[in-house]
């Protein structure tokens, strides 16, 4: 880590801590941005680095959301009665209960999706290419449809998560969720950055480039694929748990297992920023979130039209993403040695 990096990281850290006080009106948006970055970065672990393009990480996200809220309620009150009464009216969490429930809920929300990913990983990750993509798409939608039929978590009418207890002033709810999501973002960044410096990342890249050859080289690809997916699932579950508390209301197909929105968003953000890079998904998520919020605010109703057009345009004209474009433009900055003669020769050939 050189001097520039330390400067950059501490700058981002200071900005992150100061942001809710600098822009108090955008606290919720900033928290959502943190969650989006977490989702894009972890999608990138198996989507970008491993080459397994999943539409199904929404499964872990939704699972985490439901689990966190259910644990938070179920620890202190009967869950069935809570969902029946539509939430907050009958039972009230004390502040201690709320935070305690949230802490345990987040742990469960992170651990259970990881276990689920490990369990289904062996069957699902044996699929290659588009079969994997469609299979995970099916998983995500199936989870949404099935959870929409289960009574105890609210079925079709949704699940109200525990409201924030009355502590501090009006701002404290936003601040609490912002710092929670920012903390998870930092955690994710440190973990992913750590992973990307190890041999593990090289193995993932080997699997992406040619799985059969990687296997022939003696790498137990299945083991690494499952571990990669479990890491994704861990952070997706955490992000889902936070998002559930932040939104305050969970619906099976529109909030939790929202394959049409969140499930595509995470793929799109990673591709927009540049697949297979550390900073790509972060930049992509930020750009995407700004674009999305602008569009959602000023052209309400046309957002899905814009989203559809955006997907097509990005995928067709911009598959390398922002980082890929930068890399082509300034290869020196990425540590690539450019032979000037060779480059000139290529330009002349064109």
């Amino acid at each position: 880590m050189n001097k520039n990096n330390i400067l950059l990281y501490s700058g981002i850290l200071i900005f992150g801590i100061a942001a809710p006080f600098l822009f108090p009106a955008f606290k919720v948006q900033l928290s959502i941005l943190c969650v989006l970055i977490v989702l894009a970065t972890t999608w990138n672990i198996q989507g970008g680095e491993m080459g397994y393009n999943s539409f199904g990480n929404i499964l872990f996200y939704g699972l985490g959301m439901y689990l966190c809220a259910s644990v938070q309620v179920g620890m202190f009150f009967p869950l069935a009665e809570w969902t029946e009464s539509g939430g907050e009216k009958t039972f009230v969490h004390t502040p201690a209960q709320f935070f305690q429930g949230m802490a345990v809920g987040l742990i469960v929300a992170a651990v259970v999706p990881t276990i689920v990913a490990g369990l289904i990983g062996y069957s699902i990750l044996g699929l290659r290419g588009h079969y994997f993509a469609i299979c995970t798409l099916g998983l995500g939608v199936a989870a949404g449809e099935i959870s929409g039929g289960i009574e105890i978590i609210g079925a079709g009418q949704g699940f109200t998560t525990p409201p924030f207890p009355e502590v501090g002033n009006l701002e404290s709810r936003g601040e609490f969720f912002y710092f929670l999501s920012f903390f998870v973002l930092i955690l994710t960044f440190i973990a992913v950055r750590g992973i990307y410096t190890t041999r593990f990342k090289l193995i993932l890249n080997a699997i992406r480039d040619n799985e059969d050859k990687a296997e022939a080289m003696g790498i137990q690809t299945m083991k690494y694929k499952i571990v990669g997916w479990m890491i994704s699932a861990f952070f997706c579950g955490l992000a889902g748990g936070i998002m559930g508390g932040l939104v305050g209301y969970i619906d099976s197909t529109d909030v939790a297992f929202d394959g049409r929105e969140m499930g595509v968003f995470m793929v799109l953000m990673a591709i927009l920023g540049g697949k297979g890079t550390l900073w790509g998904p972060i930049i992509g998520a930020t750009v995407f979130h700004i674009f999305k919020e602008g569009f959602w605010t000023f052209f309400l109703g046309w957002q899905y039209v814009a989203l559809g057009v955006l997907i097509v345009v990005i995928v067709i004209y911009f598959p390398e993403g922002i980082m890929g474009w930068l890399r082509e433009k300034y290869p020196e900055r990425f540590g690539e040695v450019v032979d000037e003669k060779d480059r000139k020769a290529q330009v002349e050939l064109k």
Partner: protein
Amino acid sequence: MDFMVFQYPMISVQACLDGILLGILFALIAYGMALQWGVMNIINIAQGDLVILGGYIAYFMYLYGIHPAWGVIVSPIIMFFVGIAIYKLVINKVVDRDLFISILATFGISILFMQLMNFAFGADVVLANSDYGTTMLFNNNVVLPNSKIFSAFISILFAICLVIYMKKSKLGRAIRATAQNARAAKILGVDTEKVYAATFGINAALCGVAGALISITFTIHPYMGLPYTIRSFMIVIIAGLGNLPGVAMSGMGLGVFEEFADYILGTEFRIGSVFLLLVLILVYRRFKLSRKREYLK
């Protein structure tokens, strides 16, 4: 869970017949899917949305007082040009790229179509009433709407026409040649670009027919597209590309499965069970293939 369907044999017969008639429709959509997958090597997530769009064309004819059955003729003609337009705008740029790119691009088209249809036609569940009445079978124990029988008949008719067209016509031969080897076909003077456009147009036209029939027999809604895509994908992977009897059989099998799932699990789990079946089939296929690979070693 409700096992009434096994206690009363007549309900089973009803479910089977309903499922088969429904499955023939699915097979028609899956045939279009297999066609474009085989020829252009793309997976079209927007397939179901093309179906729904075709359905809305028939529905609009119904609203303006024309019998919706005529939609079976009008809808494919309009959808053919819609398909060509989509090809010219988007698909021709993803044909020789990675499959995931085509999946994502058509996912974008799917979202776009969904929302545009929502704007244009509203978010209500609609159906075009054909007034065909019902047929009673087995001592009035089994009730079949005539519209379902009509739709199955029309689907089979269109499928047969298409198969003959593919076998006999010049374009059909060109399409089959491109599916076998696009490069060789190009060398031998086949305009592959035109073949691709025609393939996508024919696929969209098939979707249009199926959509018109669905609007007569069932209901349509702007957001109902994705399940049709998944069903057709599933049918194609069970049957394999270019296996027409297989497509028909697995389509009917899927229809019967769905009807039984509807009776046993309840209607709210119907779509979920379809998606879950997809996952199970893919996993089963993966283990079967991995055993084959080990055997080859």
